């Protein structure tokens, strides 16, 4: 990425993780997907999580997204203890605090853009009128104001990801968790999506980007590298030389 990036002042701590581990039992073997990860993420950060496959990247993302709970350690989300939450409380956190953007978009194929974006609001119990208004606004914000009645198969890949981003934004979450958001897009469309995320960041959103592509990670203001379930490096900005050095080891 060329040119200087503007860095916004960060706010209070949203995610506070201390020494979390995650073990999976595979047959007779126990896999330590995460071993003692400690991490703090503040409001209005733009963080990239990098690492080769098997590094624990996905596991960490599932933890951050409250899709899964750690085996041990402490995890507080906005001061609330996630480790002790049951399924429904986790669902509520995901609904209100986390906006997911997936590599495969994960839109409902038979619902139009508006209904897709409405979904988190339905789960939040919002009345139909405000819901439609909010969803249309979110679609407008990602530049799809004229496509709200299109179904996913009537939209291009980039437009689908924009719908997904609108859906992630619609409930004003504390963090947007984007997992390889450009993985299924060509590089030009990918850049457009990254520009949209940049725009969202500048408008005050907190973004966590999970990727293995250096070009994509370069958009973030802070990068952490995972290897074998541990944070190997956590630094501000994106330092190409450093990253290359890490990649070489």
């Amino acid at each position, binding site marked *: 990425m060329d040119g200087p990036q503007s860095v916004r002042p960060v706010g209070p701590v949203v995610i506070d993780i201390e020494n979390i581990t995650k073990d999976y039992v595979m047959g007779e073997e126990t896999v330590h997907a995460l071993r003692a990860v400690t991490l703090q993420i503040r409001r209005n950060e733009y963080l990239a999580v990098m690492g080769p496959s098997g590094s624990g990247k996905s596991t960490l993302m*599932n933890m951050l*997204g409250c*899709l*899964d709970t750690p085996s041990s350690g402490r995890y507080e989300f906005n001061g609330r203890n996630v480790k002790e939450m049951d*399924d*429904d409380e986790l*669902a*509520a956190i*995901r*609904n*209100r605090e986390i906006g*997911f953007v*997936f590599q495969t978009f*994960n839109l*409902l194929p*038979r*619902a139009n853009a508006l209904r897709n974006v409405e*979904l*988190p609001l*339905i*789960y*939040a*119990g*919002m*009345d*139909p009128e405000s819901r439609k208004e909010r969803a249309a606004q979110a679609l407008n914000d990602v530049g799809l104001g004229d496509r709200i009645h299109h179904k996913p198969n009537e939209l291009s890949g980039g437009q689908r990801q924009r719908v997904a981003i609108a*859906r992630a934004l619609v*409930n004003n979450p504390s963090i947007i968790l984007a997992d390889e958001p450009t993985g299924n897009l060509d590089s030009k469309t990918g850049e457009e999506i990254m520009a949209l995320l940049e725009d969202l960041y500048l408008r005050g959103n907190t973004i966590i980007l999970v990727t293995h592509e250096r070009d994509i990670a370069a958009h973030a203001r802070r990068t952490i590298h995972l290897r074998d379930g541990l944070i190997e490096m956590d630094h501000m900005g994106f330092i190409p030389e450093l990253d290359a050095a890490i990649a070489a080891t």
Partner: protein
Amino acid sequence: MKRFLYELEESWKIAAAQMRSNMTRSTLTALGVIIGIVAVTLMGTAISGISIGFDNSMSVLGDDVLYVTQWPWKPVDDWWNYRDRKKIETDYADKINRIIAATSNSNLIVAVPTSSLMRSVKYGSNEVDGVFTLGTTSDFTLTSTIDCKEGRFFNEIESREGAQVVVVGYDVADALFPSESPIDRTVLINGQNFKVIGVNARQGTFLGLFSWDSMVAIPLTAFNKYFSSKSASDVRPGGASTESDVRVKVKDKKKLTEAKDELTGIMRRVRGLSPEKREDFSINEQQAFKSTLDPVKNTIAIAGLFITGLSLFVGAIGIMNITFVSVKERTKEIGTRKALGARRRTILLQFLIESTALCLLGGFIGLAVAYFLCFGIGKAFPSFPIQFSLGLVVTSMVVSVLTGLISGFAPAWTASRLDPVTALRYE
């Protein structure tokens, strides 16, 4: 609560979209439920039809009439104790009536004698064999609900004088007089001329139970004169012999037990039984007959519903299967929904509604099919008492919903318990 309603609405929309986009699959699955509902509904109409048929036949007996007979109206193990009883004579009726008249505050109103035989009835070249020929008095109309479609029942004078007049049942009239009115025509019963003075309204027959439709009634005096079973021709083995009984109308059907006791006393006097002797006659009422028939009726109902219920069960398995397939196919969607904040309850509800919607659809179609079938059967076999009621509509809708809920529960539960991480990763 509001949130629940929104989720409900959303689930219905998804269910509808799901059915539309999987048209063939949904139709085939619903077909199982359709067949099940048609079978159960038709069985339901048949059962209520049977019930009505029974009740119709029962009403012939009248619920405020006691029957004095040689044999009791219930199965007996010691038949030999009954076989040698004296026959009931028609002239008991007069004796009973005299006693009733002499008793103040009697619970009984009137005793009516009847005798019956199977006879052939002939008009011109038309002949009906084995017609239930009843000899009785004009008081018969007091003990039995008998409607005349045309003409009238014989009166007291005709009854006493043994006039050669006859009241014919609907089917008999129909067979003998296909194209003309039977009134004032003369028919031959066992070679004797009888003038038709009345035709009974159609009553309907069912399961061969007794019905007015296939009988004729003549004055008892005439009956005794011409068809006395004492003539040698009627004693041939296997041949029908005259069956006589006396029916007694009760004043208040709530006091049936007292009336029965009173009649027993009267009959003992008539028969001249000393106090230590056991009764050599039986007194029956409709209820006794009913209580022997009811178990039969209930067995038919239970067996019928069980067998047709099996077809609905097969339909339910189809629904369960398709819902499992649907859950499997949409695992990733379930994962996405969970990531967006759907709770377990939300997912459970969604799949329950999908299976229920499918069952309801099947139920509606099944009901419509059953309705037309009932209509067709009613047209083709007017004598079969088939009943299509609102209760049936409500019941089958409830059954459809329950089928949907029960068959959808296991897959919906599986879906709701899916781990979001695994579900999201599912391809």
